[in-house]
């Protein structure tokens, strides 16, 4: 070993090291290229939007053709729409995923259903809006209302919840199912006691992803439940409502002489709204993990 010249050992090593360093640098640069625009956008929004934020902005009605006052009805509306969407899409989505993953046999029909669900996730949201208009607003006579808009958003959210929940269920090792059944468990007992507790954090991630998208969408609620301006809060699910994303669209394009702080203040509120949903999901996830005794 000792009489081999040092260069002969070092040459291949050096080349590999250079490749390693080069690859690492490329990945770092790409990561920065991804993160930097996001951070810039957030800072920009905070910079322009923060001055608008005040107690009045958050809790008052809009006045002067929405050029002044607050955005309270839009905040409330987006809250109602998100809760409404959750009520319809979360139980239905999780139940569908459980059925597809645990009960349905793997045949051509279920494979096609899965394919359809994945494709549904890629449909432009305005198409959901038109569908909601046709089905809920006109055919079922729900009118432009929180109910119609929530149902439309639910249909849009379902594919996301179903496919992420199914993935989370698939990630639970098959051996747990076999063991549980071998101890005299029914399928449902196995799902409830073993599979769901294991999959809960993956499911929550899917639910929050879906609901966040619903909270931020404009097109699906455009024809089904959002209103340009309402001087009062919605009193029932059959009322139309203002909503943050639609309000943003309106004040950015439809109202001349709109102060820029109000626009960016609205954006900031919407982002914080989504952030709060994320935080709630994280808290629930870590609670679920702490309760699990392992």
């Amino acid at each position, binding site marked *: 070993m000792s009489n081999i010249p040092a260069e002969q050992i070092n040459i291949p090593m050096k080349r590999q090291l250079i490749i390693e360093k080069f690859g690492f640098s490329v990945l770092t640069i790409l990561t920065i290229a991804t993160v930097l625009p996001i951070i810039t956008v957030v800072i920009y929004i905070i910079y322009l939007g923060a001055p608008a934020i005040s107690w009045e902005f958050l809790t008052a009605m809009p006045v002067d053709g929405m050029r002044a006052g607050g955005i309270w009805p839009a905040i409330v509306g987006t809250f109602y729409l998100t809760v409404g969407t959750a009520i319809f899409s979360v139980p239905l989505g999780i139940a569908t995923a459980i059925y597809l993953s645990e009960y349905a046999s793997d045949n051509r029909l279920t494979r096609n259903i899965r394919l359809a669900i994945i494709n549904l996730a890629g449909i432009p949201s305005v198409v959901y809006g038109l569908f909601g208009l046709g089905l809920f607003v006109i055919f079922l006579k729900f009118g432009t209302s929180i109910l119609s808009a929530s149902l439309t958003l639910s249909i849009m959210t379902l594919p996301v919840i179903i496919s992420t929940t199914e993935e989370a269920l698939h990630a639970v090792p098959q*051996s*747990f*199912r*076999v*063991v*549980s*059944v*071998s*101890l*005299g*468990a*029914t399928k449902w*007992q196995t799902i409830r*006691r*073993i599979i769901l*507790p*294991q999959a809960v954090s993956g499911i929550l991630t899917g639910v929050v992803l879906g609901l966040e998208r619903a909270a931020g969408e404009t097109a699906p609620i455009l024809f089904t439940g959002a209103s340009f301006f309402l001087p009062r809060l919605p009193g029932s699910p059959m009322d139309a409502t203002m909503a943050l994303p639609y309000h943003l669209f309106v004040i950015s394009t439809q109202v001349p002489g709109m102060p820029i702080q109000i626009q960016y203040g609205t954006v900031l509120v919407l982002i914080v709204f989504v952030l709060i949903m994320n935080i709630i999901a994280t808290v629930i996830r870590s609670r679920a993990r702490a309760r*699990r*005794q*392992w």
Partner: protein
Amino acid sequence: MDKIIVEHFSLTYSDGTESLFDINLRIPANQITALIGPSGGGKSTFLRILNRLNDLADVKKVTGKVLIDNIDVLDPDLDVIELRRKVGIVFSRPLPLPLSIFQNVAYGLELAGEKNKSVLNDAVERALRLAELWDEVNDRLHDPANSLSGGQQQRLCLARTLALEPEIILLDEPTSALDPLATARIENSLTELKKQYTIVVAPHNTQQAARIADFVAFFLQGKLIEFSSADKIFTKPVDQRTQDYISGKFG
């Protein structure tokens, strides 16, 4: 007394792998019966038939008869939940459920609807003592089950099965993932347990069968080649293939 009677039993999987052909076998009560033979010969399949775990697999066709205490195991209307409580199984790898030690052992009873805390406590202690694990875990019953060593986990799996007070215990290569010391503990437990239970085991190797079995069934490529008392199989087997397998000519 014959606990398990198998007559002209055949099974085919949908993909054609590891099938069983015309198995005839009478497994006696309160004895250890070992299923030996090269892997892929149908031992696991045979074990999983006895508590209908094969329902979860892609089985194409079963024919013949399998009786446990004269109850038709293959009856489609059979209460499989009750069957699985009566016929417990321990798998080749230690597979604790993602629960605490206590919850693992109490799992089967809780499924059956047992809610009484003291009944559960007693049953868990009894099962853990039978599996010779109680002394090692009684001060940390509520720790996660996967904090135990591999050998402890496998004894936990045995305890989990015992907690249901089954009549038959199936073990599918229960010591294949264990070191010799842990293996010896499991083997000791089994020899102790056969007083109360009928045990059917697919042992890790032929030596293990020789150590613990009272009866031995030799499976080769889905067929039962020979079945008799362990003494006879290991001293003067009738079939040449049994002789060759036991003497290590193939495996």
